[in-house]
C-alpha cells in the first residue's frame, strides 16, 4: 500500500494515523567539491509528516545537503533513500527551492507561467493543463499573495515577491517531499507568518518538509525536528531535545563574543576595525 500511493494526494500514512510513515533515510553521506569536503558522513532518518530544520553556520553544508537530495550534486559516498529506494529515482515526488535562483530575469515568463512550471511533472511533458492543475496554480499564487501580480514578468518584481513566486512554484508542485533552502529569506512579516502556518499544515497532511533556516528564535515555532550540522552532523532529533544551548554552541563554535571595540578615532577608519578574530 505504501508503494503505489499517489504522492500528490495527501499522504495516506498521515490521515489514517498509520504508524508506518514513509521514510527518508540518509546514511553516511559525504559530498565534496574537489578537495573540499563540504559534508562528511551525515546520517539521519526521518518520516513524512515532519518539518525538519537544517541549522548551522554559513558554509556548514546545508545547501550542499539539499542539492544532494535534489539530485543536483553527486555524493562522494553514502546513500539517500526515500521509501526504500534511491531518492534520485523519485524526482517527481520532490519539490526543490534553491537558496539563490540563478535565472535569467529577462526571460519572457510571467509569474503565473513560473508557477505553472511546478505542475510540469504532474501534467507531463505533453498533456494540457486540467482544471485541477489550474486550480493548484491559482491556489499557490493566492497562498503566496501573488494573485494580483500573476501577469507580471518575473523580472519586474521586488526581491521578496520573486522569492514568493519561487516558493509558490514549489507549493504548486504538491510534492511529497519539499526541500526548501531558506524559504523565509526576504519575505515580509505577513508572508513569513503565512508560510509558517502553511508548512505546519503541509506537514499535517503528510508531506515531509526539510528547510534550511537561520532564524534560531523561530525554529521551535516552525519545525518538529532539527538537524544541527557543521560539515558533520552535530545533533539530530526533535526540536526540544536537540535545540539546546550546548548543541548550538557545538554547532556554531563558541557563541560569537565580539571583542569590545575602542571608540572611533580620527586616524583609523572605524568601518574596518576587526571585531572578531
Amino acid at each position: 500500500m505504501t508503494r503505489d500511493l499517489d504522492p500528490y494526494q495527501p499522504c495516506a500514512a498521515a490521515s489514517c494515523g498509520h504508524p508506518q510513515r514513509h521514510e527518508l533515510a540518509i546514511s553516511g553521506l559525504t559530498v565534496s567539491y574537489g578537495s573540499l569536503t563540504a559534508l562528511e558522513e551525515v546520517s539521519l532518518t526521518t518520516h513524512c509528516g515532519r518539518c525538519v530544520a537544517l541549522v548551522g553556520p554559513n558554509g556548514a553544508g546545508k545547501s550542499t545537503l539539499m542539492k544532494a537530495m535534489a539530485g543536483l550534486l553527486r555524493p562522494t559516498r553514502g546513500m539517500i533513500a526515500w521509501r526504500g529506494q534511491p531518492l534520485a529515482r523519485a524526482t517527481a515526488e520532490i519539490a526543490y527551492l534553491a537558496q539563490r535562483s540563478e535565472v535569467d530575469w529577462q526571460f519572457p515568463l510571467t509569474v503565473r507561467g513560473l508557477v505553472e512550471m511546478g505542475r510540469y511533472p504532474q501534467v507531463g511533458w505533453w498533456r494540457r493543463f486540467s482544471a485541477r492543475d489550474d486550480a493548484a496554480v491559482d491556489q499557490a499564487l493566492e497562498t503566496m499573495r501573488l494573485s494580483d501580480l500573476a501577469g507580471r514578468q518575473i523580472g519586474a518584481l521586488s526581491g521578496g515577491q520573486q522569492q514568493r513566486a519561487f516558493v509558490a512554484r514549489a507549493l504548486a508542485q504538491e510534492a511529497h517531499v519539499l526541500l526548501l533552502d531558506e524559504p523565509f529569506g526576504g519575505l515580509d512579516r505577513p508572508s513569513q507568518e503565512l508560510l509558517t502556518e502553511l508548512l505546519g499544515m503541509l506537514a499535517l497532511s503528510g508531506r515531509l518538509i526539510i528547510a534550511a533556516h537561520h532564524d534560531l528564535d523561530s525554529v521551535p515555532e516552525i519545525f518538529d525536528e532539527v538537524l544541527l550540522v557543521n560539515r558533520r552532523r552535530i545533533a539530530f532529533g526533535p526540536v526540544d531535545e536537540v535545540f539546546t544551548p550546548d548543541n548550538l554552541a557545538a554547532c556554531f563554535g563558541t557563541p560569537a563574543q565580539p571583542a569590545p571595540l575602542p571608540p572611533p578615532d580620527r586616524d583609523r577608519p572605524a568601518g574596518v576595525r576587526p571585531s572578531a578574530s
Partner: protein
Amino acid sequence: MHWLIDPLQHPHIQRALAICVLAGFANGYLSAFVVLRKSALQVGSLSHTLLPGIAVGILLFGLSPLSAFAGALVAALLVGLGSLTVARSSRLGQETALAILFTAAFAGGILILDFAPVDVDIEHYLFGNILFATDDDLRTVFWVSAIALVTLTALRRPVILMLFEPAAAQSLGVPVRLLNYVLLGLLILVLVSSLQAVGCLLALGLLVTPAATVYLLTDRTEALFWGGGLIGAGGAVTALFLSHHFDIGAGAAIILTLAGLFFLAWMASPRYGLLRRRAMLVTAGGAPPLRD
C-alpha cells in the same frame, strides 16, 4: 490581385513560395529557442564550421550534394557538441568554447585542403538562393523541419524549463545534459538543411529575427514559438513577392523585411518599445521591463 497572381505563374516562384512557408515557419519557430538560449551568434559561427566539413566531405566521398551535406553536418556536430562538452567541463561559457573550436576547425580545414586539393571553391556551398532551390532541397527542408518541429513541440516544456533554470529542471527529473545536446543537434540539422536551400545568410537571419521580434512584444513564453513561426513564414512570403516586383535578391529581401519588422517592434512595442520607456536602470545591458 494581379500583383499576387502574376508571380505565381513562374514555377521557380511557386517552389520558392513553398520553401518560404516551410523554412520560414520552421526556422521562425526554432528561432524562439535560439533567442531564449541566447545562441544567435553560435548559429552564425556554426555555419562557418561547415566550410572545413564540406571540404573534408568532398575529399572523402567526392563531389556530390550528399557528401557536402554529410561533411557539413558532421563538422558542425563535432564542433557544436564539442563546445558544449568543453563548456560543461570547464568554467568557460559555450560561446568562448565555440569560438576556440571553430577557429581551430577552420585552421585545420585550411591545412587539409592545402595538402589534398579539392577543386571546389567551398564557399559557394554557403551561398544558396531560395529561387534556386531544387526539389531535393524542398524535400530535405520539409523532412528536417517536420522532425525538428515535432520533437521540439513535444519537448517544449522541459526545454523551456531547462533554458530558464537548469537546476530546477534537473531537480524535476529533466535530463538536462542530454536535452542540451539534442537541442543543439536539432539546431545544427535545421541550419545545415536550410543552408543548402536558402544560403548561409538567410538561414541565420531566419533563425534569429522572428522570435526576437516577438520577444519585444510579449511576456508569454509560448507566444515566442508560434509568433516566431508566423512572422518567419509571413515575412518570407511577403518579401518574396516584394523581391519579385522590385527584382531584387530574394534572400536579401527576406532578411531586410524581417529586420524591418523587428525595427518596428523595437520602436513601437507597447511593453518594451523604445517609445514607451520612462524610468529605467541606468546600467548597461537589458534595462528592466515595465508596466503592470
